[in-house]
């Protein structure tokens, strides 16, 4: 009898499985839905480059059977920009955490979005630094407890969907790790979108964030997500709040804008056409 294979097995690097994620972690849900999205799109995985930074979800690039690169902390997007700029036929997908993308890598995020380069970013937002043991980060809610906010967090968190929209992303959506089908649909839209697309996924983190904030039980964590989530698609992202008592989910931006690698090609062709017209196609005046 042949061994039973998972239908998505061929999308994974089987030598790397089992993954490192904790029981009840939302990162595995993102991996599953990302692979299902590729499967449903029948996407040519040879065209895909999965790039990640550092942190729990940073390991995801090792699990997908694609060209993949695990960069330094925060630099996944800058790496992906280099890939896309020279190989416009490839599609980089950056999958990383909230700390990686918005604290140490925040500058790269706003500039990649500003350029509207054709990269999809999927952010696992678990409100803390899980890999290093649950420290506060740029998305930690006010008053939340972490290993570095023992008396409650006093910093205002980022609204990532609002930040992405304000920076110039052409597709922005937010779901949680219990909204699996909608998350998958948004990942599919994002991958097919020409331009900078951003899918935020609020994830459960029972072992680190959860156990310090009365969400240690994975089932309780999921129930909490269901209770506080409200779908409000295409409202102004500034109103799409993420608070312990209310998480606004939905699609917030879906628009069109000239894309960077297209503009780059167009500009290069124009330079070369002018050279040809002036008869400088061989050696050229500087």
């Amino acid at each position, binding site marked *: 009898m042949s061994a039973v294979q998972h239908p998505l097995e061929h999308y994974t690097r089987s030598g*790397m499985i089992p993954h490192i994620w904790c029981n009840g972690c939302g990162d595995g849900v993102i991996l599953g839905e990302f692979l299902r999205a590729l499967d449903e799109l029948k996407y040519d995985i040879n065209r895909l*480059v999965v790039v990640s930074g550092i942190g729990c979800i940073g390991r995801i690039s090792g699990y997908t059977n694609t060209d993949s690169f*695990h960069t330094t902390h925060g630099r996944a997007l*800058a*790496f992906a*920009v*280099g890939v896309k700029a020279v190989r416009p036929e*490839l599609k980089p997908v950056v999958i990383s955490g909230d700390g990686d993308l918005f604290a140490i890598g925040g500058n790269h995020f706003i500039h990649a979005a500003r350029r509207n380069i054709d990269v999809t970013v999927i952010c696992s937002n678990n409100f803390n630094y899980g890999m290093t043991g649950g420290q506060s980060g740029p998305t930690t809610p006010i008053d939340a407890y972490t290993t570095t906010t023992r008396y409650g967090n006093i910093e205002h968190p980022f609204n990532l969907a609002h930040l992405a929209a304000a920076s110039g992303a052409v597709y922005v959506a937010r779901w949680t790790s219990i909204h699996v089908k909608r998350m998958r649909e948004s990942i599919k839209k994002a991958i097919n979108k020409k331009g900078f697309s951003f899918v935020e996924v609020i994830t459960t983190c029972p072992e680190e964030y959860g156990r310090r904030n009365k969400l240690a039980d994975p089932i309780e964590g999921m129930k909490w997500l269901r209770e506080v989530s409200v779908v409000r698609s295409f409202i102004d992202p500034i109103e799409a709040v993420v608070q312990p008592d209310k998480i606004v989910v939905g699609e917030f931006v879906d628009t069109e804008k000239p894309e960077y690698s297209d503009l780059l090609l167009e500009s290069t062709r124009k330079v070369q056409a002018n050279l040809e017209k002036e008869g400088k196609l061989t050696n050229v005046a*500087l």
Partner: protein
Amino acid sequence: MRGDLPRLRHLPNREGGENLRRDVLTGTYFSLGDVACAEGALAAGCRFFAGYPITPATEIAEHMSRRLPEVGGVYLQMEDELASMAAVIGASYAGVKSMTATSGPGFSLMQENIGLAAMTETPCVVVDVMRAGPSTGQPTKTSQQDVMQAKWGSHGDYEVIALSPSSVQEMFDLTVEAFNLSEVYRCPVFVMTDEIVGHLMERLAIPKPEENRLVDRKKPTIPPSQYLPFRADEDLVPEMAIFGEGYRFYATGLTHDETGHPQTDSPEEHARLVQRLCDKIRKNANRIAKVEGVFLDDADVCIVGYGSVARSALSAVVEGREKGIKIGLLRLVTLWPFPDQVVEEVAAQVDKILVPEMNYGQMVREVERCAGRRKVESLPKLGDALHTPQEILAHALS
């Protein structure tokens, strides 16, 4: 000096010529050092530049931004030097010869991803047009203060290659060489120049394309199903697949085995990887390291210099010889790997070695390490002035 040589910026049209290509501007010019560096990169096949403006390296970025589109390449101005270095690694893994250029403050920021390039064995070239530090220092003033940083700048054990041009011609030649070395050894290669050479205008002869010896990285010769991205051949360098060719490999800054999979617990795998990353350079040090010797055969005193200081040292040697003094020059063309063997041999023959540097004494430590019990004297110089030949000669004789 300039005579009738055209400036590279205002090259007249040359229509209908044979073998004239836009990427290799064969001919003789009156050129800026930074521009010669950019033209060397293009002639070497560089088609991607990611950078951030910084004095005194900005002219390299400016020239690349104008020239890369002409040859179908890409110039990207990134948000900072952290991003520039990351984008260079991305473009290199996408199969394009890639570079960046910066000065001390930017070089410091790049160290993070220079470590990643060393760990993931990424061919790439980084030019550092050195200015006076530490910190913001004196942005428009020259120095050689980053030469140790080139070797030790990122954390962990790794080896790099660093070249030190002394002239505008060498800004071109050694940039070509830097690309070749990075492709052969799959490591970051540095062109460690200084503000004086970067901003020098002098003669530049660009050879014909077919006279440029160009080297490309080893591509996998086996099908994707059998490909192990970090299995090294006998030369300790693995074959390199690129994105989009169906090899579907994984590269990580974590310690990894031949398959590329992380090995975060095994001491053996860590030792094996780090030793190989170092040994692929160390074991080829004699092949990589280049020096130039002048009047060394019968010298009693040897000056060891590099970059613009070596020009002043050469004048000192010529002046000394005219006075009948047995003085010679050992010019370091390669800084890293350090040419241990040559320095050992020279040290055995002379009474004294003088090391003038535009820093507070950096490479002199390497010279001391190789010189045995021979007297080695440091001649540091800080602030915006090259050592005068008279100064060097006086110290050589003191």
